[in-house]
């Protein structure tokens, strides 16, 4: 990398021990990137252990950010700058780098002991391992401790400032203002003035180090173009933040309160944490004793007239399935969010996967159809929350919204929407006639098959609901064979009717017919977007997975080949094959890591090559 580079975009990876404050440093860097007007996408890649033994490869926590002129839709394939806080971080990250990348290492940590812990037989700084890279070896730990000496902190307290020292260096590289980060430190550490001042000082010292090192070392300032983004007001947002706001917005649009009931699980918990701060928006959060209780409490809240929402990840969703059937049978609205993670069983809790599609569409006893949606980007989680709620209330049904571990934590710039332009979310009115209360409660809209939402407390409308089959008209318990057939048909028709309201499937880009179309869903949006742009390939991205948009079959039939890349073993491929008469080409990756753009480009090119 030459000094004073002008580049279109750049991928940076920060890696260190899980106690090094890497995630904090990364997210602050993302905010400063945003404020400087660059587009970006981030990928926090953290270990399953909270504090794994220091210096080990499995304790490495990393934060990758891709920034530049945009559009940036993925955290980037290969880091061009690596900041490695210790040998283990270097060991884990080096294989991801292309030759010529800039590697900043924290010299102080390259002791014999740490090298051994990382599994290095010899010192990579000296044995040629780093020959193909540009290396800046800085004594970050030591310099930082010198900087904060005056505050009289213990060695470990002082050491905790080093992420801000390194952040100062990074901010210098990109010519960024220190102001916003400094403000943030002051707010965050308002109650411990010494740590506050020490961190601010470390930040400035790191920045100054950049200036001086420029003269001596390989460190160079990088000039990034401003992103060309649609005019408007932007913020940085993660999927968990967007979904939390989206759920609150759904409550506001429906003019109902929201009761969010959940049990902690990675990577679903950030949503619970976010919502716990939104009480003033009419959102209640209930941390239940388990996932069964959480969906049940959400159902109870829906029965009581609030918007019941529950969230978990695959293993917890499995526990909720019986109760989903109850919500289907009782015709109650409910939003179920699944932050997918690697499985089976406990699997890879902190790694991403999209392997719960079968579970969402098919995973219940009996004929129990439920609409399924998915969010493609962090920002899109906002709109999908109100879309899911809209369907739930309109059709009086549980709705599953699929997100994943990547989206939960990944930040991107997001154009702040004006919710006063959103349509209100409406519910079916209680019939105004002489029918019995029982019948009124089960009066359904002929187009949506959604029933009236009659809730306890409404005067004179006492009725009984439950999981036993009920008469299609009177709403009383019924074991009549023909009635069960009709009720089963009704439940199918109800989910099918959702397709009348979701619009037609659009093409993201590319021609609407041809030799190849790539079909994606969920968080693979980013890499597929880039790969199809690079290769001029048509791209279709699904947000509605059950029911599928009505025109999808016809649309796909206009292409010779349909490529379906997924972070699972071929679940959308199966679904498309079963629902539409297409025979997709599956492309599956289950490493717990998002797709790289180049993997997709290679696949697209090989398919194209094979067909020409």
């Amino acid at each position, binding site marked *: 990398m030459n000094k004073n580079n002008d580049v279109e975009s750049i991928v940076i990876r920060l890696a260190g021990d899980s106690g090094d404050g890497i995630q904090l440093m990364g997210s602050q860097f993302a905010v400063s990137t945003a404020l400087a007007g660059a587009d970006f996408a981030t990928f926090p890649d953290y270990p399953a252990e909270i504090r794994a033994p220091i210096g080990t490869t499995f304790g490495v926590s990393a934060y990758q950010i891709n920034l530049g002129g945009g559009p940036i839709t993925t955290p980037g394939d290969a880091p061009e700058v690596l900041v490695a806080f210790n040998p283990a971080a270097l060991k884990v990250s080096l294989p991801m780098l292309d030759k010529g990348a800039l590697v900043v290492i924290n010299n102080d940590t390259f002791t014999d002991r740490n090298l051994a812990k990382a599994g290095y037989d010899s010192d990579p700084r000296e044995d040629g391992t780093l020959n193909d890279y540009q290396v800046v070896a800085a004594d970050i730990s030591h310099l930082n401790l010198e900087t904060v000496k005056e505050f009289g902190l213990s060695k470990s307290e002082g050491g905790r400032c080093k992420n801000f020292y390194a952040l100062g260096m990074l901010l210098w590289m990109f010519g960024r203002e220190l102001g916003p980060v400094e403000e943030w430190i002051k707010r965050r550490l308002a109650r411990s003035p010494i740590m506050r001042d020490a961190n601010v000082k470390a930040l400035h010292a790191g920045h100054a180090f950049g200036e001086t090192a420029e003269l001596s070392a390989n460190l160079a300032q990088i000039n990034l173009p401003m992103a060309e983004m649609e005019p408007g*007001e932007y913020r940085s947002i993660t999927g968990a933040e967007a979904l939390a706001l989206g759920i609150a917005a759904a*409550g*506001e649009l429906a003019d109902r309160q929201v009761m969010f009931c959940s049990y902690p699980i990675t990577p679903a918990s950030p949503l619970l944490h976010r919502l716990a701060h939104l*009480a003033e928006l*009419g959102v209640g959060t*209930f941390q239940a*004793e388990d996932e069964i*209780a959480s969906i049940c409490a959400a159902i109870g809240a829906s029965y009581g007239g609030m918007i019941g929402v529950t969230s978990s990840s695959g293993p917890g969703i499995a526990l909720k399935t019986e109760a989903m059937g109850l919500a289907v049978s009782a015709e109650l609205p409910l939003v179920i969010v699944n932050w997918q993670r690697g499985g089976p069983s406990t699997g890879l809790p902190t790694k991403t996967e999209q392997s719960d599609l079968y579970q969402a569409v098919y995973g219940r006893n009996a004929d129990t159809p439920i609409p399924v949606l998915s969010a493609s980007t962090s920002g899109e989680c906002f709109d999908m929350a109100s879309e899911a709620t809209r369907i739930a209330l309109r059709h009086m049904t549980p709705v599953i919204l699929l997100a994943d571990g990547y989206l939960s934590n990944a930040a991107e710039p997001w154009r702040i929407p004006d919710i006063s332009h959103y349509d209100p979310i409406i519910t079916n009115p209680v019939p105004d006639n002489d029918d019995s209360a029982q019948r009124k409660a089960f009066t359904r809209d002929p187009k949506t098959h959604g029933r009236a939402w009659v809730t306890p407390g409404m005067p004179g409308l006492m009725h009984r609901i439950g999981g036993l089959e009920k008469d299609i008209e009177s709403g009383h318990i019924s074991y009549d064979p023909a009635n069960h057939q009709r009720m089963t048909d009704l439940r199918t028709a109800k989910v099918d009717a959702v397709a009348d309201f979701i619009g037609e499937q659009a093409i993201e880009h590319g021609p609407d017919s041809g030799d190849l179309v790539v079909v994606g869903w969920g968080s693979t949006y980013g890499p597929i977007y880039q790969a199809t742009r690079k290769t001029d390939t048509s791209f279709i991205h699904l947000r509605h997975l059950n029911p599928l948009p009505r025109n999808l079959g016809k649309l796909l039939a206009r292409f010779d080949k349909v490529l379906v890349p997924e972070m699972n073993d071929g679940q959308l491929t199966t679904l498309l094959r079963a629902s539409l008469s297409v025979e997709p080409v599956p492309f599956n990756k289950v490493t717990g890591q998002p797709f790289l753009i180049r993997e997709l480009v290679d696949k697209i090119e090989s398919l194209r090559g094979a067909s020409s």
Partner: protein
Amino acid sequence: MTDKLTAKDFATSQEVRWCPGCGDYAILKSVQKALAENGADPSNTAFVSGIGCAARFPYYVNTYGFHTIHGRAPAIATGLKLAKPDLDVWVVTGDGDSMSIGGNHMMHALRRNVGLKILLFNNEIYGLTKGQFSPTSRIGTKSPSSPKGSVDTPVSPGQFAMGCGARFFARGVDTDKVGMSDVLHQAHAFIGTSLVEIFQNCIVYNEDVFANFTERRNAANTQLHLKHGEPMLFGEDNGSGISFNQDTWSLEVVDASTSADEVLVHDEGNAIVARMLIDLHLPVALGVIYRQPAVSYEDSFYGHHPSRMERKKSVRDFIKGPSSWTVK
């Protein structure tokens, strides 16, 4: 409401489907009567149940009703109570529903002190699934799944409740109208979770398991009806009493005429005595055994929502996050 409602007003048009002679009928009558006597508003009352014979209950009460899934009624009722804190929420559950599959939810409802009136119909058997032994069945219970007699040690719902931090525990006998009426009134008036264990005769699969203390002709000698502030007397002419034996650290029966000053006075707030009363074999302790009011879960929950969960602000006020920027 203008006219005072009667028990009949709390009946539905649904045909009651319990076996003839089942104890559930008597309980239903007592509950309907108590609701009427307490001036309950049917529109503002909901019965939530799990699965089992007992759990059919909501179909027969003319209030709001939700027949849910096995064991989960306390969790669903908790969500309902949070959504509608002013609603009168009752839970009807069986011994299997509450103590096996739903034990976890029962524990957490009790410890949270959610404002639910929980009626536990204990027949010491799984009725609906045709008579297998349940977690309250005594050792040696012969059933289709335990032909040689069950070997599991039974759980005591009362001890379970005390261990979970319950604030109200009472007991009644299905056919004892007077006792049931008293217990239901007290449970209804309690703020927080009130758990009432009702000894319920399953005439088909576990007939007369409780006969040793429920038979009317001998009831005076086998039942101890507790009243707060009154001595623990029972038997013909209240000839017997309960006292505390300081040598064995346990309760014992004494002759009330000779040892009157040793007879304990019932103090509902005493958790230690409550636990001993729960374990008393004969007589069996009935009525309100333990009551120790505390702030209810919904009150604490809403205490953390200054606006009582009313929407005080718009998403617009939050959506910008800590920092935002403008692209021109």
